[in-house]
Every structure is written in structure tokens, then in C-alpha cells.
């Protein structure tokens, strides 16, 4: 069973012993197993031994096993990992401090023993933080061994303790687990959100304060003797003549001040930023005594959460406006005539998801048996509203109380349906799972809590009262295994289509109807028998004492040939099913194997459940009927086409030798001649006209200093000849000679009457 896979046990031998199932000599049969149809009247109350599904045989005392629980609700951000299992923490410590090899074996054993002690305390209901549990357990172990607190055991445990860098409440798998885990992750995600929020708001406060401060420094008040004196402090005040300084400063030219309107606006923005109630102020911010407490965001009903949201909406709108104004003010781009009308019109419809993401999300916790069933309907409406509300629906009883058939009115079944319905809301994050999977679903939970829109978490706790004696961990894992409460996620943020959004791969062996597992046991001759056993919905229902009356355990002696496993029975055609009776394998307290014959009612429920599972598979892209049909159609078309081609080939005349050896060149596409990139030749300059290689001009001012009408700068501040007639040819030659990068080409003289023309022409030759 994937969901119940355990890691290395500390008492490996004893577990293996427990895991073996012995076929026994049982003579107690409660009912006439010859009748495959057990009814209420036939059966009466169960009188057989308390049985469990045979696959549970290896899971006896969970407190002796190393598995996902107890969980640690990690304090702080935990490097993004808000849940840790005790096992993984201890493994991490051992990897760090205990080198491989025999030398470190005592240390490993001591630490594992300590872990066992902590696990035992938690399973006894002791609730505390890991560090305190560690301390108490270590003290007990040391006392038990009779060593002093400075002895070798204490030293080893202290050494391990130093490598422990995680702390937080340690919880076991029980009725409170879904709420505690979800609330913890919600709190941790809100804490990181609060951090980012405070950082953003504080940066705005700081910059706006700077603007006001800079403005104040230009005021007459800041130039008074007293203000200057207080700025220096008392240590060196005798070294300055503050009156003279004040006199000098006040005589200076008056500086630009902020307009009164802007100053007032900035102050108003600061006031809103500093008095917001959505997040607490954090450690190092001043909090005025008259400032109201921050808002709470955890509710036990959807109506209360929605009311709170509506009440706070005006404040949220104000805050969003203020954030925008603050950024405009910081960039000095607030224009009253432009922006005032925009903000005057600003209302709820202008709120974007990005802006809503600044605020905390609302957490609503509903629980089977504790919450008004009408809340289920409200939860659906709340999720449909698209607001950032995270709804936890915890179910303790999937099967209902009255009948093994799916009850129509019970809250438990309703919540299971709610998750599937919520996935149809399109923009709601939906995650359904059982308590046993919570640790492995850490990332799914965090993603849902971080999702900007609404999210639904439907969790089966496994704490069904009628399954007394069955650990909630085991029962919740069984719910997932048996497809009674399958795990699935619908995440609208990951992609546009169902194939990326909907995922059922977290289920064990998701491609088949029922997951199968190995079971091995001894027969009467003490020989090992290996079997592959599916875990069906019937196995899960049989864990519940309310349905014991529909089950008839048959010991080995009463086994008959017409008994077939329930999973096979479910596959039979209706007319053939009358020939057989369905059974599941069970064990009693002594791990003795039984075939438990089950009533048709349970078979019907299992069939109904398998049908629901197959629909879920289709949504998850497994055995999708549309795809299968399309595939069959395409395959058929392809086969027909190929058959036709084959027939054509057979009937076609044999090719002539000439055709067979057609020259390859004739069919090969002509090779395109490489098209040479046309050389970008510059326009041939007229050697008679003066010109400048403008792109190479270094802006050195040589030419413009000679004649700034003849030579001018373009928009890149590089020279060109603005007017060749604005100066003499002599100036043109002088500029060409002065240009350090020799990019001025003077051309021919434009005025034939200019003096010394012959000499100038000869000087121009190097630049033509």
C-alpha cells in the first residue's frame, strides 16, 4: 500500500512477525455463508471476531513504526518547508552527525531510541514542541539507564540536539490534524505575505517621509537657531554660532518648496499607510495606543467571512488608492488635473487580482458534525464569488450513518461531492485528500494557500467514530487506497486546459480500479503463500463496525469454491454473479486469516464508487472515453488507408527499369544558389561636394569652433556640413586638417574667386 508504506522499523523482527498471517483453525462462522445475499433480517448484528482487512496485518502498533507522523508544524519560514516529519528530521540529524560505519552505531541507536520515546509520548496524547519533547524524552532515557546527566548517553544526545535546527508543535494523526495543518500553513503563508507587504509599505513610508523631510529642511523653521542647535546635539554646541548660521541661512535665496496641496496629499497617504489594519505592524514599528487592533482573518463560517470582506472593502479600496498615489508622488508624477478624476471614480470594479493579492486571504474552517450543514451550500457560493477565501472542509465520516448506500443528505458525503463540484467553478483551486497524505501534499497545500483566488481543501481525517480501534492514519490512508476518498488537485494557475490543471497522480496506482499489494502468509503446513490482493472499497467499508452485519467471516475450514474475491466479483456479468459469493480477506486480532463474505449492498456501493473513480480517472486523462473513441476511429481510418495502399501496390504494374533507376538529380530539388548579402555600399560621394563621415565624429568641437554655421551638430551631437557656403574654402580646409579623426572631406572650392585657391586645393588632396 503506497499510502501506508513504512520505512525501516526499529524493531524490524517484531514487525515482520506481526506482518505474517497464519491460516488458522477457526470454527466460528457467524452466518450461513451458503447464502450470498445477506440482508438485515438474515444477518442480524455481527457476532464474529473484530476483523480488519488482511493488508492491515503488518500495521499493528503505529507508534512503533517510522512513518510520516508525528508531524512537526515548523516555526518560522523553515526554508519554505512548513511541515516536517519526525522521521525525516531524525534522519537528517543522523546523516549530519553519524558517519557510516560501526563506530557511529551506538550514536545512531541512541538517537533512534529517543525518536521512539518522542513518538510514544505523542501517541499517548502528549502535545508540545519538539524541543521540549526532546528534552523530556532525553531526561527519561538517561534516568532509565541510571546514568548521570553528564554521562556518555547525555553527551551523545546533546551532540545530536545541537544538530536539531527545527522546532515547532508535534502532532499525531487525529481528528484535529487537518485543521491544525491547514491553519499552520495558512499562517505561514500569510506571514511571508505580511513580510513582503510591510517591506513594500515601509519603503513607501520611508520615501514619502524623505520628501517631507527634504521639504522641511528648506523651511524657515528648520533654519531657526533652535532647530540648528538641536540638529547638532549637545556635545559640540559651543563650537558653533547657531545664531549666525541661522542668520546666513535665512538670508539665502528662498528655495523651491512643495505646494501645500502636495504636502497635504503626502501626509494623508502616510496616515493611511501607517494606520492600516490588514497586517500587524511587525516588531519594529511604532504602534500608537489608540490604534485599533489588526483584523482577524480566520472564520468558522462562510457568511461571517463574506460579511467581514464586505465591511472592509472601503478600507481596502482606500489602501489600494493610496498605494498608487504614493508611487506617483515618489516619482513626482502626480498631476492633479489628470489623476484626481481617476481616483474619484475608483471603486470595487477597479480592484485587480494583483491588488487583492496584497491583502491576507480569509480562512474558513468547516467540520463535519460541528458546522451547520447549510454551510456546505454557502461554501460553494463563497468559492464561486472568486474572492480570496480558503475553505477547509474536514470530513470525519465518509460513509454516513444510516445506510451503506451513498447517503444523499449527510454532510460527509456532501463535502466529498463539494470538492468535485468546486473543480467545475473553473477559477477555484481544489485539493482533496486524506489526513495520511498531508505530509506528502505539503507543496499542494502551500500552492493552494498562495493561490490568489479562492481555494477549497477537502480533507478526510480518518477519525470516524464508528471505526473504533482503527487508527485515523490507517483509516484515512485506506480511504485513499480504496478510492472512497481519492486525492485530486485542480489548479487553475498552472495552465489553460484540463490536462494540466487536473491531476490524480497522487493516488496509489492511479491507472487501475483498485491498487494491488503483496500479501504473504503461512498455511497449515507452515509454507509461505504469496498473494496479490487488491484493496477495494469493500475492504474500506468493512473497517466500519456499522457495516459488520453485512459481513460474514469464514475461517479456513468453511472456504468454498464458489467464493471469489470482491474485486473479481465486481467484474462479473450480473447473470453470472448469482453463481458466486464475494469475499474479502480479513484478519483477526491474532492475525489469523479469514474470508469475509460480503452482502450485495456493499458490492453495490463498491460498484458505485468504482464508477465515480473511473469518472475521476477520465478527468485526470486516464482511460478517457473521448480520447479512446477518437483513437479507435483514427486507428480504424489508418488501418483502412494502409490496407488500401497495400492493395494499390499489389495491383500496380511493375515499374520499368528506366523508371526504377531515375536519376536522383532529376528529383532532387534544385540547390538554391547562395544569395550573397547585397553589399551595403555607401552612396558614392560626389568628390566635388564637401561632406563629413558623421557617424565617426567624436564631438571634439574642432570644426564648430572654426565656423559654427558651416559645421553643425545633429541630434546625436555629431557634426555635419550645415551650409558649405557659410564660410570660405580656407575654413573648410582648416577644419579638415584639424579634425583628429580625418573625417571631413572638403570637396572642390565653391567660390572660384577665393584667394590662394591653388594652395588650398593642394592642401585638400589628402582628404578627398
Amino acid at each position, binding site marked *: 500500500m503506497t499510502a501506508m508504506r513504512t520505512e525501516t522499523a526499529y524493531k524490524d523482527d517484531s514487525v515482520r512477525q506481526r506482518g505474517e498471517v497464519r491460516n488458522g483453525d477457526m470454527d466460528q462462522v457467524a452466518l450461513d455463508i451458503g447464502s450470498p445475499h445477506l440482508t438485515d433480517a438474515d444477518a442480524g448484528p455481527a457476532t464474529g471476531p473484530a476483523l480488519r482487512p488482511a493488508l492491515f496485518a503488518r500495521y499493528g502498533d503505529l507508534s512503533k513504526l517510522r512513518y510520516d507522523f508525528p508531524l512537526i508544524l515548523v516555526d518560522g519560514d523553515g526554508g519554505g518547508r512548513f511541515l516536517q516529519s519526525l522521521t525525516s528530521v531524525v534522519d537528517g540529524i543522523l546523516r549530519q552527525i553519524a558517519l557510516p560505519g560501526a563506530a557511529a552505531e551506538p550514536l545512531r541507536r541512541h538517537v533512534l531510541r529517543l525518536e521512539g520515546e518522542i513518538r510514544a509520548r505523542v501517541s499517548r496524547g502528549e502535545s508540545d514542541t519538539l524541543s521540549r519533547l526532546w528534552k523530556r524524552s532525553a531526561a527519561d532515557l538517561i534516568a532509565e539507564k541510571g546514568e548521570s546527566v553528564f554521562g556518555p548517553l547525555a553527551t551523545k544526545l546533546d551532540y545530536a540536539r545541537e544538530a536539531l535546527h527545527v522546532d515547532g508543535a508535534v502532532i499525531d494523526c487525529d481528528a484535529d490534524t487537518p485543521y491544525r495543518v491547514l491553519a499552520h500553513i495558512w499562517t505561514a503563508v500569510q506571514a511571508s505575505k505580511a513580510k513582503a507587504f510591510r517591506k513594500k509599505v*515601509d519603503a513607501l*513610508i520611508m520615501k514619502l517621509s524623505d520628501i517631507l523631510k527634504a521639504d522641511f529642511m528648506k523651511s524657515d523653521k528648520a533654519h531657526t537657531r533652535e532647530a540648528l542647535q538641536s540638529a547638532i546635539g549637545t556635545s559640540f554646541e559651543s563650537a558653533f554660532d547657531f545664531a549666525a548660521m541661522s542668520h546666513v541661512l535665512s538670508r539665502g535665496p528662498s528655495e523651491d518648496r512643495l505646494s501645500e496641496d502636495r504636502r497635504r496629499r503626502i501626509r494623508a497617504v502616510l496616515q493611511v499607510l501607517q494606520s492600516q489594519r490588514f497586517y500587524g505592524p511587525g516588531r519594529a514599528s511604532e504602534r500608537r495606543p489608540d490604534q485599533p487592533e489588526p483584523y482577524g482573518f480566520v472564520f468558522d463560517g462562510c457568511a461571517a467571512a463574506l460579511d467581514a470582506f464586505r465591511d472592509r472593502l472601503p478600507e481596502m479600496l482606500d489602501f489600494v488608492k493610496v498605494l498608487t498615489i504614493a508611487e*506617483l508622488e515618489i516619482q513626482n508624477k502626480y498631476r492633479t488635473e489628470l489623476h484626481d478624476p481617476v481616483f474619484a471614480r475608483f471603486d470595487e470594479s477597479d480592484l485587480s487580482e494583483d491588488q487583492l493579492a496584497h491583502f491576507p486571504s480569509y480562512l474558513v474552517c468547516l467540520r463535519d458534525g460541528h458546522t451547520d450543514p447549510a454551510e456546505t451550500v454557502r461554501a460553494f457560493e463563497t468559492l464561486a464569488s472568486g474572492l480570496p477565501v480558503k475553505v477547509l472542509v474536514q470530513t470525519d465520516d465518509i460513509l454516513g450513518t444510516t445506510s451503506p448506500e451513498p447517503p444523499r443528505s449527510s454532510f460527509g458525503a456532501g463535502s466529498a461531492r463539494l470538492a468535485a463540484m468546486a473543480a467545475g467553478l473553473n477559477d477555484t483551486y481544489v485539493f482533496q485528500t486524506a489526513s495520511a497524505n498531508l505530509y506528502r501534499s505539503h507543496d499542494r497545500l502551500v500552492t493552494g494557500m498562495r493561490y490568489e483566488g479562492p481555494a477549497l481543501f477537502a480533507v478526510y481525517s480518518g477519525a470516524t467514530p464508528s471505526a473504533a480501534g482503527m487508527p485515523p492514519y490507517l483509516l484515512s490512508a485506506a480511504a485513499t487506497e480504496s478510492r472512497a476518498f481519492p486525492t485530486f488537485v485542480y489548479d487553475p494557475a498552472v495552465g489553460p486546459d484540463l490536462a494540466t490543471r487536473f491531476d490524480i497522480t497522487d493516488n496509489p496506482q492511479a491507472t487501475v480500479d483498485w491498487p494491488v499489494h503483496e500479501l504473504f502468509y503461512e498455511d497449515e503446513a507452515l509454507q509461505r503463500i504469496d498473494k496479490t490482493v487488491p484493496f477495494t472499497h469493500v475492504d474500506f467499508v468493512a473497517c466500519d463496525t456499522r457495516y459488520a452485519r453485512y459481513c460474514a467471516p469464514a475461517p479456513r475450514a468453511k472456504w468454498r469454491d464458489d467464493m471469489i474475491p470482491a474485486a473479481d466479483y465486481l467484474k462479473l456479468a450480473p447473470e453470472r454473479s448469482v453463481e458466486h459469493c464475494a469475499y474479502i480477506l480479513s484478519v483477526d486480532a491474532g492475525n489469523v486469516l479469514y474470508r469475509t463474505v460480503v452482502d450485495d449492498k456493499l458490492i453495490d456501493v463498491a460498484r458505485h464508487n468504482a464508477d465515480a473513480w473511473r469518472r475521476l480517472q477520465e478527468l485526470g486523462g486516464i482511460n478517457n472515453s473521448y480520447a479512446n473513441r477518437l483513437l479507435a476511429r483514427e486507428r480504424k481510418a489508418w488501418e483502412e488507408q494502409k490496407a488500401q495502399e497495400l492493395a494499390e501496390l499489389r495491383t500496380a504494374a511493375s515499374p520499368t527499369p528506366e523508371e526504377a533507376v531515375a536519376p536522383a538529380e532529376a528529383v532532387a530539388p534544385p540547390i538554391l544558389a547562395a544569395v550573397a548579402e547585397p553589399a551595403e555600399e555607401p552612396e558614392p560621394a560626389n568628390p566635388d561636394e564637401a561632406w563629413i563621415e558623421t*557617424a565617426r565624429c567624436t564631438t*571634439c568641437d*574642432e570644426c564648430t569652433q572654426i565656423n559654427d554655421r558651416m559645421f553643425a551638430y545633429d541630434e546625436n551631437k555629431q557634426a555635419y556640413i550645415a551650409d558649405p557656403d557659410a564660410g570660405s574654402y580656407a575654413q573648410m580646409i582648416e577644419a579638415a586638417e584639424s579634425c583628429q579623426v580625418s573625417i571631413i572631406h572638403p570637396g572642390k572650392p565653391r567660390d572660384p574667386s577665393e584667394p590662394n585657391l591653388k594652395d588650398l586645393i593642394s592642401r585638400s588632396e589628402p582628404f578627398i
Partner: protein
Amino acid sequence: MTAPLTQCLLRLIDENYTLTDYQSDTPPRWCTGCGDNGILTAVQRLCRDEQLSPEKTVMVSGIGCSSRLPHYMNAYGFHGLHGRALPVAEGIKLRRPDLNVFVTTGDGDCCSIGAAHWIHAIRYNMDMTVLLHDNEVYGLTKMQASPTSPRGLKSNTTPRGALLDPLNPLTVTLGVPNVSFVAQAVDWIPEVLFDIITQAYRHKGFSFVRVLQRCPEFMDHRFDPWIHDPLKTRLLVHAEGIQLKTDISRIYRNQETHDPSDLHRAREVASETEEIPVGVLYRNSAVPCYEDLREGERPNTPGLIRTVLNEEFDKFTIWPEDDGAAPPAE
């Protein structure tokens, strides 16, 4: 296309800066023919093309001809102490990371009196663009040898000729840990100068550009061999570096494809003496910026400063009742 409200509202403000928006009222007082003019133009073109707000742009300089550049830019400027341009720029960037910080410095300002700051500024890798105007001489003080002056240069301080080989700012920069961007340009190929400064600006980190620059007064004809023989200038081209336009490519045919991520080859190229390598020698965007590394958990708002100060003062406060309780409310 959609955009956040703030961005929409900001776009309502139509700003279109032209080159003249970055020109100050003071006309440049550099000598006619000075390479500094070309560098100033390239910086102004960059500001225009990137549409940098003048009020969000700071030019910081030390002392020297090159360090007069902030006067000629219509932006914030800090004409500071000799050799201290970089610490001032670092202070500005730390306090105001939103500003575009440029540093203009000369071969004396950076490589002599400011050498210590230079080395550590490279190591700190703060996001700024540094233009080293290297004319290989002290020009403002009428010709004294600088650390990059060629051996044998006769100047007021080296009448018998400079005795030492010059310091190579490129190899020095490339030898400092955390170096993230090194390029070399020459003022007489303005298009390439502009391209390189643009690349430097866009690089997040300490972008160091050495610009070989003519000094017509004291080092006249120093670069003539390279100016008049384009084959003596080796242009480093690469998809991650600069790419040449056709007209430039036709003149400067001596080209090498140089991958700017290759530090080893960058050091070899930087050591060339016969040919002048021009282009992006080295670029590593993965080096973290100091201002990001030391960014606090929260901005230092006035409220935060007061609270933290009070917490510190409380540690030394002696309460009237020495039982650890807070004083009674007044």
C-alpha cells in the same frame, strides 16, 4: 495588453526626453579636440535612448579634467574629492538604489589616489556605470605622469622620462574577485563607444569601462598610430558583447569573436600592447550586488529607527524598581 494601475497612470504622463534635456547651461570647458567631449555625447545619447529621468540620474566624479563631466550634464551631480568618487557613488546607491548612478573618473583619480577605493568597489559590485577617462597623463595640472603614462614619457614630474611600465587598468580590474563587467572603448570610434556604454549601463553590477581618450594639449599624437591605422584596433565582437554596423565593420576589419564569459581569454586580450582591444572583455551577470546582499529585512522608516533606538536605550535604562518591570505609567 494590461498593466497595473500605477503603470497606466504613469504612462499618462508623456515624457519624451531629447538630447538637449541632458545638456546643462554650462558649455563644456574642455579643450577643443579633447576626447572627453565624445564621452559626454555618448552618455547624453544613452540617457536619451534609455529615457532616464534627469532627476533619477546622478553623475559622480572626483578631480581631474574628466571629473568636470557632471557640470555639463543636466542631472544630479557630485563633483567630489580627489580619488573619492567611488565611495560617494556607493553611498548614493546604498541609500537610493532607485537612482541611475554614473561615475566619471580619470587615470589619476581612479588608478593613483583612488586605487584603494577602486579595488574594493569592484569587489563590492554595486550597480553603477564607471567610465575611466584614460588619457595617460595629468592634464588639469598641466602634464604630470599618471599611473598609466607610457614608460619614457617626459613630463613635469618625470623630466628624464617615466621610469616604470604603466599600470593596466583592465588587467587589474579583471584580477579582482567579484568583477562583473569590464570593457574598453576609444573615443575616436564614437558608435562603438556608445554601444559599449549602453551595454555597461544595462549590466546590473559594477560596469567598468576604460575609455582611451585623446588629450590634444599634453599627449598630442599619442594615439595617432591607432587612429590612422584601423588594423591596429582589434574589435571584440560577440552576440553577448557588441555587434558592429556595416560601415564600422568595413573600416575596422581587425575583429575577433570574443565570448565575454571567458575570463581567461579576457585577461589575455587585456594584456595586449600592440593592438588596442575594443569591446566587452568580460561580463558575468551572476555576481551578486552588494546593495542586494546587505538589503535589510525592512526599510529604515522613521518609525523603525525610533523603535530600534528605544530598544537599545532600554537595555541601559535603570528602572526605579529593579525587578525588570516597566516604569509605572505617568
